[in-house]
């Protein structure tokens, strides 16, 4: 492997990694903290992408479209939590899995009805749609660099909020003591709803950023969902540090696996990674919350 191929692949791996982190972070918020396995989390990713593509067509301005898509997805998340998911907080995982599986089917079909089966075309404005030289001889797509930057930024911001603020503590305290945290003066429902819609918004952000790279199509959420799940589990449920480390690890392993390993092992490298890590540490890399 040449140095330049190595560097380009590393960038690809990192970019895929932060993308996974954006999705996994929201999933961790909802799953690790509120104890809700929301498989429909991938649907927010899809919704974010569709909204972004639709808005971009009207507005034309990239960042405005991203922002609007993120806010709207967060809003849809809040709505969904209220309407459909509230009763499932206290249900066993299995019920949550099935109910949200049902939601996936619903959202996929709904987007298909609204936007049709044709993938949406997202053409980026101006410089974003090009590639720039990163080091001698390699030019790299600007949009992928943007994803990398946004992902790292969001990760930092999240870390600060979760680790250092009182809101962060409440979020971490989460479901473990819902009733009594409430009796101590915290509006737990509100905190949860907010956390849920922030999680949805993060997935929406991932979707909006992915839209220019990937086909915006119904069902796009499921393929990333599994990887996001793997990230959450490898990292240790409820751990943001873990999710970030695992996301980067998974991103790199998958990218390099496909380049270097024979096809079968390239396909299953991430699953092997998870099996290996869990048989070594059954609670994931960073089991403690935080």
């Amino acid at each position: 492997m040449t140095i330049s191929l190595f560097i380009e692949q590393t960038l690809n791996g990192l970019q895929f990694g932060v993308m996974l982190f954006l999705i996994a972070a929201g999933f961790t918020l909802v799953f690790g903290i509120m104890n809700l396995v929301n498989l429909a989390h991938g649907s927010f990713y899809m919704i974010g992408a569709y909204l972004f593509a639709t808005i971009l067509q009207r507005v034309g301005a990239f960042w405005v479209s991203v922002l609007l898509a993120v806010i709207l997805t967060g809003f849809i998340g809040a709505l969904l939590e209220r309407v459909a998911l509230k009763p499932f907080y206290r249900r066993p995982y299995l019920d949550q899995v099935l109910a949200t599986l049902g939601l996936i089917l619903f959202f996929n079909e709904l987007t298909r009805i609204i936007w049709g089966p044709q993938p949406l075309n997202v053409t980026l404005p101006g410089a974003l749609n090009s590639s720039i030289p990163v080091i001698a001889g390699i030019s790299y797509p600007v949009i992928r660099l943007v994803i990398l930057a946004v992902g790292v930024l969001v990760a930092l911001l999240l870390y600060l909020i979760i680790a250092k603020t009182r809101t962060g503590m409440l979020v971490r305290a989460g479901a473990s003591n819902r009733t009594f945290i409430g009796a101590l003066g915290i509006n737990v429902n509100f905190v949860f709803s907010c956390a849920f819609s922030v999680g949805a918004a993060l997935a929406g952000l991932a979707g909006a950023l992915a839209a220019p790279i990937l086909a915006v199509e119904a069902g796009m959420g499921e393929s990333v969902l599994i990887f996001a799940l793997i990230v959450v589990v490898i990292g240790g449920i409820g751990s943001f540090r873990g999710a970030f480390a695992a996301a980067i690890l998974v991103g790199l392993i998958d990218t390099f696996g496909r380049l270097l390993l024979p096809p079968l092992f390239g396909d299953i490298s991430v699953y092997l990674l998870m099996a290996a890590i869990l048989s070594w540490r059954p609670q994931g890399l960073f089991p403690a919350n935080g």
Partner: protein
Amino acid sequence: MLSVENLESGYGSSRVLFGISLSIQSGEVVTMLGRNGMGKTTTVHTLLGIVQPTAGHISFHGQPIAGLQPYRICRLGIGLVPEGRQITPNLTVEENLVATARGPGPWVLSEVYRLFPRLKERRRFMGAQLSGGEQQMLAISRALLTNPRLLILDEATEGLAPLIREEIWRCIWELKKRGQSILIIDKNIDALTQIADRHYIIEKGRVIWQGSSAQLQAHPELSQRHLGV
């Protein structure tokens, strides 16, 4: 400051409270006594809105609070040390304290650390890593840090070593002197009769006796019959 009239509630289809009435004046220390499973904890939970009342009135400082969400009731000034401690296992000791702290008031972090130096030693530990007794200290401190007008202690000395238990009684004594209103549920009747102003004996979801410490001591047959002492 707190008045409860004919409170009824229960879990699902099973009725537990059948018309509890009690009141607490400012600065008073009041207890609820009774054998296991008579509805003391259920009364507390109903006061705080954790369990919904099915009938009756509750007012706190003249404001009706029945049916409000627990967090709203708490914010009106009720601090709970719940039965079974209920501390947050995945937050550190200090985070447990800070997360729900509310001012202004006399209780700040340094003050509870003065009260329980052990917690200060353990302040970077996760809640789950504390011993049973340490968790109990944490639960008390956490309630104090909400600077409540009414403090409710539900079996707050359970599982504590004698020395610490003594410390807690001393602390409650101190709070009482400062004018703190307190509702206590505990098994140590001897200690309670010395510290509390008035007592309610609960049996099968009803108040079957109320009176002062002196009255309680004057009628040992009461304790024998209703408390199993």
